[in-house]
């Protein structure tokens, strides 16, 4: 019986899945290790505690500065999901407790599950009613729909929640407009900015934003750290109970090393934000044009991006996102073939068993289920290079051909999902 064999993994690996997670920046690793070695509980009163607290608060300062917010407005969490959950549960309960008529949650049909599942939970367990804001073919919410909803049911709304940018197709939502409408109507507005933060300019102090969730590992920080922006004026019902850390909203010893690394990553990302935005946009545009040239059948999903400088001024799409559907192909066939060719990417959505299913985002955009099954998300990040793009383009035509031959073998046409 042989020793475990190392499989024939092709090298070098080309990583095209930065929207899932991106490599930690060297600055973040350094900050993480430094604090992990120093140790100390940030709540302790002795010098070791104070030094841990300093690392933590420095991290918080950086996150706050990048969001155009005050440090006191930043609640550190275990990640984006916890921040989203805290906001949806907290804003809903606070609004309902203040006025029992407010039980409606308005949310877009393309929200991340961290938001939509929290809302669904409230619908099942606490009598919330969900009002879905539909999206157009590019995945964008129409502010007129929200305006109409606010006029009709403004005094029943507990909160409105719309993501800044979509994790699958990269669509940037008209957040300023939506926030202004909520501001005028006096309704709380939560923004999931996990994908947007440090990819496009994000300003938490836009009038009307109540809370905003971000995550460290999407931008070069460690996993297991995130933050919720929540100004003093916003009342959040606590979702965890204990020692009263983080404004008593989120009890539990704060991850000091993680917070320090989060801050270091944010600082590094901010330093050359514009140059990196343009660089990443250009790489993505080369990728999109190259795929279209090699596989004319491929359909770009999400908005057609504008010129890099226009996008910087008014982003319509995340700079690192290219999302295609390949007709007649099964997404998992393509993922397998790309993986075998050394390219790591994603079908764009994964259920909890890691099974690719037709994405709720694509279906919400009106993409037919057959087409939605052939989705591939290419996402670039800070470490992406022109060679990475070239490697994808070298492989894509053959991957498409083969996957097309394999066809929709697992799919039963017309089968209700």
């Amino acid at each position, binding site marked *: 019986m042989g020793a475990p064999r190392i499989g024939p993994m092709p090298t070098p690996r080309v990583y095209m899945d930065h929207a899932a997670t991106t490599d930690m920046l060297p600055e973040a690793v350094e900050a993480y290790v430094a604090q992990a070695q120093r140790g100390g509980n940030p709540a302790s009163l002795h010098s070791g505690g104070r030094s841990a607290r300093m690392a933590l608060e420095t991290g918080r300062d950086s996150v706050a500065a990048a969001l155009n917010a005050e440090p006191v407005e930043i609640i550190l969490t275990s990640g984006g999901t916890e921040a989203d959950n805290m906001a949806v549960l907290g804003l809903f309960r606070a609004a309902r407790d203040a006025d029992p008529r407010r039980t409606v949650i308005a949310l877009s049909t393309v929200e991340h599950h961290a938001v939509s599942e929290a809302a669904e939970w409230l619908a099942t367990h606490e009598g919330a009613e969900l009002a879905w804001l539909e999206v157009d073919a590019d995945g964008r919410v129409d502010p007129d729909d929200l305006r109409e909803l606010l006029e009709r049911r403004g005094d029943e709304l507990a909160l409105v929640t719309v993501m800044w940018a979509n994790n699958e197709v990269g669509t940037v939502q008209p957040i300023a407009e939506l926030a202004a409408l909520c501001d005028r109507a006096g309704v709380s507005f939560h923004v999931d900015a996990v994908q947007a933060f440090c990819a496009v300019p994000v300003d938490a102090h836009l009038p009307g934003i109540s809370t905003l969730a971000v995550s460290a590992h999407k931008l070069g920080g460690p996993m297991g750290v995130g933050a919720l922006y929540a100004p003093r004026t916003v009342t959040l019902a606590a979702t965890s109970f204990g020692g009263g850390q983080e404004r008593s909203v989120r009890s539990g010893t704060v991850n000091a090393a993680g917070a320090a690394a989060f801050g270091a990553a944010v600082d590094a990302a901010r330093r050359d934000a514009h140059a990196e935005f343009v660089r990443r946009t250009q790489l993505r545009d080369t990728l999109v044009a190259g795929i279209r040239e090699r596989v004319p059948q491929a359909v770009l999903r999400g908005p057609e991006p504008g010129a890099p400088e226009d996008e910087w001024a008014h982003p319509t799409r995340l700079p690192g996102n290219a999302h295609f559907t390949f007709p007649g192909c099964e997404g*998992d066939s393509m993922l397998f073939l790309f993986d075998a060719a050394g390219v790591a990417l994603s079908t764009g959505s994964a259920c909890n068993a890691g099974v690719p299913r037709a994405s709720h985002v694509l279906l919400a955009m009106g993409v037919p289920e057959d087409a939605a099954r052939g989705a591939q998300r290419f996402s670039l990040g800070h470490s992406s290079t022109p060679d990475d793009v070239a490697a994808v383009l070298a492989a894509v035509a053959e991957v498409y051909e083969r996957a097309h031959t394999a066809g929709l*073998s697992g799919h039963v046409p017309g089968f209700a999902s």
Partner: protein
Amino acid sequence: MRVLAAMSGGVDSAVAAARAVDAGHDVTGVHLALSRTPGTLRTGARGCCTIEDSRDAWRAAEKLGIPYYVWDFSERFQADVVDDFVAEYAAGRTPNPCMRCNEKIKFAALLEKALALGFDAVCTGHYAKVVEDADGRKELHRAADWAKDQSYVLGVLTAEQLEHAIFPLAETPSKAQVRAEAEERGLSVAKKPDSHDICFIPDGDTRGWLEDHMELAPGRIVDSQGTELGEHRGAHAYTVGQRRGLHIGRPAPDGKPRFVLEIRPKTNEVVVGPEALLSIDVMEGIRPSWAGLPPREVAVMPEDVDGRSDEFPVTVQVRAHGDPAPARAWLTRQDGQPRLCVRLDEPQRGVAPGQTMVLYQGTRVLGQATIDAAFADRAAAAAS
């Protein structure tokens, strides 16, 4: 060869994949997601296809150092196996969903996809053997361990499918040996309990599951003369040969127990009667297939006419863990449709339409057909 190893998360398929790696193949592991709504944790000894099983399969693949993917066949499984299972019961037949899965999923949808993606073969943890005849053609045979032999549920495989099937557990003397080998290889599934029966009915309560998935249509329980003896809540709850749970108040005139003889879906009647009427010695099956070369008697039969092949000796098995019974078989055609017929040397009891009869010669699987009629050959009985 480039081999795709189907890994359920159980010990058999993990060891099979390990042996394929040892044999020098370039192996990739794949877990088939078959449930539309997979549970998170395995419940008890039975069932599979939970997220825990998927994780077990992944851990085994990591241990073997092979790439691993989860592929979604849940739509196909629902349509071709689960819905078919319900439809067969609704039509008064007794299907075998594992055979349907092998026929439609593992060695059809999965194999086709694997071949299209550049693989040469699919490997599974079935206990069965593929051997080459003198001309290099593949034959399907029973596994070395007859107690674990699963050649019955593979009886649906055709020559083309056998060309691309690898069963590394073929020569394993016992299941205990597979577990020991898993332990030795450091596979965490070594002690995992066996899954049994029907994977989408994890608690094993087929009747209860059917009641949740079918319209219950109450009907009459009658004897073979058509006299009403009682009422039933739904014919699906009865199997040919069943004795218990008939809930007929009146005893039979001769005082002997009654058995289910037949389900009549058209009139929604369950026919009961004495044990003697259960025994059959002729079975006829539709949609026959041959696991490799068909028997010579069939091969020489003219293609285009109704007729009857010469008889050939076989042993026949009608359930996964049944004993093979000696018989003579022949093929007929009626209106161009082939019909596989078998006359048993000794009568058997309790054979239901919908069951698959698999024909063997020695250890070799010849082929199979779905039983649509089983009866006592009364003419022969009268003549004797």
